[in-house]
């Protein structure tokens, strides 16, 4: 919450002071990265995955001593069409609910980290801010991350967050006159595998 406040107040001025930062690291996102969305209805649960990331994107980590805040910049763009819910009906329903025809891409923009992780093999918990854009609605969230680096120097960034359909002005599907109802809450988890460049 404090991060959110600091970022909101200082976001623009920090961009202008980027030259004062002490460290800048670039991470390139590997194609093995994945994202999953899980939720439930009153009759079942569902889990939908985007099993691989088909673009080449980088995240830039910049530590700024003036503010003690670690800036994270970069974004991932995920095709809603790539979701696989392991059931064609549920997959199509999720794509329809997320308004895939009008807004085919889900964007996650990375903004900050609470601290610069040590990058050991033991996953280190940090938090960070992201902007998530779904169906044309942009919303800022604090994400719980676990960051580690494995023996092959691959950085693992695991993030998770509970969201609501209603956060993005989406209506959870209801069927048969409301007898089957999808719950508003969704859990989004992503696993980015990255290499330092």
């Amino acid at each position, binding site marked *: 919450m404090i991060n959110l406040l600091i970022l909101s107040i200082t976001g623009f001025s920090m961009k202008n002071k980027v030259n004062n930062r002490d460290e800048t690291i670039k991470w390139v996102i590997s194609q093995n990265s994945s994202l999953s969305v899980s939720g439930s*209805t*009153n*009759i*079942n649960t*569902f889990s939908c995955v985007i099993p691989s990331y088909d673009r080449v994107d980088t995240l830039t980590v910049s530590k700024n001593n003036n503010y003690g805040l670690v800036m994270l910049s970069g974004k991932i763009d995920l095709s809603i069409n790539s979701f696989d819910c392991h*059931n064609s*009906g*549920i997959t*199509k*329903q999720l794509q*329809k*609910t997320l308004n895939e025809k009008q807004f085919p891409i889900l964007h996650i923009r990375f903004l900050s980290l609470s601290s610069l992780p040590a990058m050991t093999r033991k996953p280190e918990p940090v938090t960070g801010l992201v902007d998530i854009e779904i169906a044309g609605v942009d919303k800022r969230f604090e994400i719980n991350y676990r960051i580690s680096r494995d023996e092959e120097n691959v950085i693992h960034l695991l993030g998770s967050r509970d969201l609501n359909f209603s956060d993005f002005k989406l*209506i959870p*599907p*209801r*069927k*048969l*006159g*409301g*007898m*089957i109802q*999808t719950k508003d809450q969704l859990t989004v988890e992503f696993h980015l595998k990255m290499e330092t460049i």
Partner: protein
Amino acid sequence: MKKILITGLIAGCILFVLSYGGLFLGVRFFPGLFVAYDNPLFNSDGSRDVLFYMHAFIISFALSWFWDRFKSLFKGTFMMRGLEFGFVYAVIALLPVMWISFSSLDITFVMVSSWFLYGLVQAIIAGLVFAKINP
């Protein structure tokens, strides 16, 4: 005409309670049968809920008219007349519709069979009501 409307209304109220009550219990106790409804084929925004819940009355008024027109053809006890009426409706109206639905829509055999049984039970109940109050 008044008789048709009154019997249709009574049957509609009875079917409303039994059909949606049964559906509610089905969803609650046999959720696995309803997972296939999580599909864009079925309306999901609630905009047609009123139409959905009117179905019990639509079928009741239609069957009430059909009963009044052809009730002399159904012989025997009120139970037999109601049962025969339900089966006639199922064979004439439901079976062909379910056949074309299954052949053309991306729906499962279990789903289409459940619709057939649902309609058959509705028609039998309506037939029993008509045989009792509009013999």
